């Protein structure tokens, strides 16, 4: 079913049915807007946790300063389409890599942890790629999940129950502390089980808790962030770079991504792929448009639809476009279901009043 189908159906209905379809559509539109808003908010909450977790590991940050563990990559497995692991932290001296997955909320703890175990196994298979990213051989790989403090108990219980080699970090926003949960009494055994970091200095710091203000936004978005977040962060940069001329090519978008300090682990191929994806979505929601359509998007010229003073409209444009699309599809389905129900003699009196 397409949006075209919705319009065809609407035009073909008699007045009473059309009115009913529009009512269904308006209800669906509100639902769709709410869902999109919630998804965007969830994504921002996730990013906030990612930044909170990353802050002490930034160059010259507390942990980097004291232990040499440094944030070296975001979404290190993005190139092989594995979205798990938001951060890769590496110690150049000890050759230890810590892959960190951040979860701002957890509904199904079993699923989240199982996904993480799978991703960890993929990381083992892709050690060469990870070594290319960090520019060094890797001796030890450790996995950590970082959750908001409220979820640590549930996650700890699951990890213990399944005896998994996962370190558990908690983010306590009230005290601005990032800490590691001690999951068992015997430290030596916990280290062997992969639930406390091998590095005594790092483990000590994390067990005591590290201050993270969470007020340095070093990562404005992740490559797998919500499309709306990415558009909001990238389009203004394009607007400023393009200047008064307001014309640019896909390569300009790629150059912007290439200059993003936290995407330095992305190679050229990944940056082109990400640029094309951003451009496609921006055109779809009418934030950017073609100036000179050509068959090859790398040669085409684009311009912005939103002006500098309308940057806040990007989210609205995104939400309007997608909620409308979703609502048209959903109302078409609901209307068809009602019709079938009526034909089968199951309709309630309120369905068609």
């Amino acid at each position, binding site marked *: 079913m397409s949006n075209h189908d919705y319009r065809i159906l609407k035009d073909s209905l008699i007045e009473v049915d059309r009115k009913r379809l529009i009512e269904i559509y308006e209800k669906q539109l509100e639902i769709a807007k709410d869902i999109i808003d919630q998804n965007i908010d969830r994504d921002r909450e996730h990013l906030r946790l990612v930044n909170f977790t990353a802050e002490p590991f930034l160059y010259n940050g507390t942990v980097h300063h004291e232990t040499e563990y440094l944030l070296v990559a975001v979404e290190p497995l993005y190139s092989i389409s594995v979205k798990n692991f938001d951060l890769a932290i590496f110690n150049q001296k000890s050759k230890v890599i810590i892959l960190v997955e951040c979860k701002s909320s957890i509904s199904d703890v079993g699923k989240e942890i199982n996904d993480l175990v799978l991703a960890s196994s993929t990381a083992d298979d892709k050690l060469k790629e990870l070594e290319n990213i960090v520019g060094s051989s890797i001796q030890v790989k450790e996995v950590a999940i970082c959750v908001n403090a409220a979820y640590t108990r549930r996650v700890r219980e699951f990890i213990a129950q399944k005896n998994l080699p996962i370190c558990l970090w908690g983010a306590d926003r009230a005290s601005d502390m990032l800490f590691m949960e001690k999951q068992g009494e015997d430290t030596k055994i916990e280290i062997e089980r992969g639930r406390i970091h091998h590095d005594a200095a790092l483990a000590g710091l994390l067990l005591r808790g590290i201050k993270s203000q969470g007020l340095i936004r070093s990562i404005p978005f992740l490559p797998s962030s919500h499309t709306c977040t990415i558009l909001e962060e990238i389009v203004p940069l394009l607007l400023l770079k393009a200047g008064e001329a307001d014309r640019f090519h896909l390569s300009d978008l790629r150059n912007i991504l290439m200059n993003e300090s936290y995407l*330095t682990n992305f190679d050229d191929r990944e940056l082109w792929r990400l640029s094309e994806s951003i451009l496609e979505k921006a055109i779809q929601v009418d934030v950017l448009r073609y100036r000179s359509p050509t068959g090859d998007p790398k040669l085409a010229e684009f311009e912005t639809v939103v002006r500098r003073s309308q940057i806040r409209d990007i989210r609205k444009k995104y939400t309007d476009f997608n909620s409308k699309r979703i609502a048209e599809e959903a109302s078409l389905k609901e209307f068809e279901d009602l019709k079938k129900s009526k034909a089968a003699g199951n309709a309630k009196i309120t369905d068609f009043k």
Partner: protein
Amino acid sequence: MLINTPGKFPKLKALYFLTNFKSWGDDAPYTLQGMFHRHGFQVKPLGELRELQTVFVNPVTDEKIPVNYFAHLDEEKQLLTCFTQATSEQIQDTIAPLSGEIGIYHLWISPIAFDQIKSMILGEHPYARIKRFHADRHPAVGFPAKLRPEVNRSFTYRGEDGKETLEELRYHYGVLPRYIDFSIPGLADFRANNRGIFHYLAGQLDCMFGYAERAVNLVIQVREILEHSKLEVIPLTTERGSRRVPYIVPWWINFKRTMDVRDGELLLEQLEDRKFSAYDTVVTEGSVHLDATVLDEQKKSIFMISSDGRHMGVTPRYQTGFDSFLRFYESVAEYFDPDATCVATL
């Protein structure tokens, strides 16, 4: 020359601008000289000074009035001082708009620094008086006021008891001074304006310039914090060559008041009036948190802000300079917390 002949300059004003420039440059648009040209000034070299000539058109009579400034660029401090006898209206219309250009901003003296200057003058000269001042209250400023804080108000006061009255008005009506006329018996009379304009009224010019210099130094301390912030990609040597990592140094605003959710939302709205577009915003209740990316439409820069209600971290993102940050700090102080301080570390 100017200082030795004060009698010739009864209305002398000294205007201070912080700049990125270390020289006047040529006529290219992004040099200091080019910038003045774009704003309709003729720039004539006069030894160490430049004479800046322009025309003010009286909006009522259409009369064209020549307006001159004698400007000196301190290359080390990157400080531009412009001397003039122009009226406030002429200044506002001719040279003030340069603050909207990239790489230059008027010497905005924060309310805290302005208070410090006031205290210095009154403390060092027990007989000094405030004989006139202008103070106002922005409609939404969070500064406390005992009486009807929701009212937009301004006062211009003349009287021998200006010092006490200013305190009383500040306490009861929540107003902040924009300019203050100081009278130091037997020494000098001058007006200090919080936008970096010092207006000579009588007595010894040196005295006014002495306090102007101290104000400059206070603002330069802020500038140094803002300029220290950075977003760079630095190379790190690795086993197999090198890799690049981000190096981020933010700057911080410490609030005296606590920002709640409503304050945060209001601040973001008000920033729009100053041509800051805040987007990609998150404002959460409970333990308050505010995140936003901010585009400075005037200075064409982008930075990110993040606040827990007590502090605000400001992280550079694209082409941020001290001028954009100073403008932002000014807006936060004027719209939310006049006692907000700018610091390098928390």
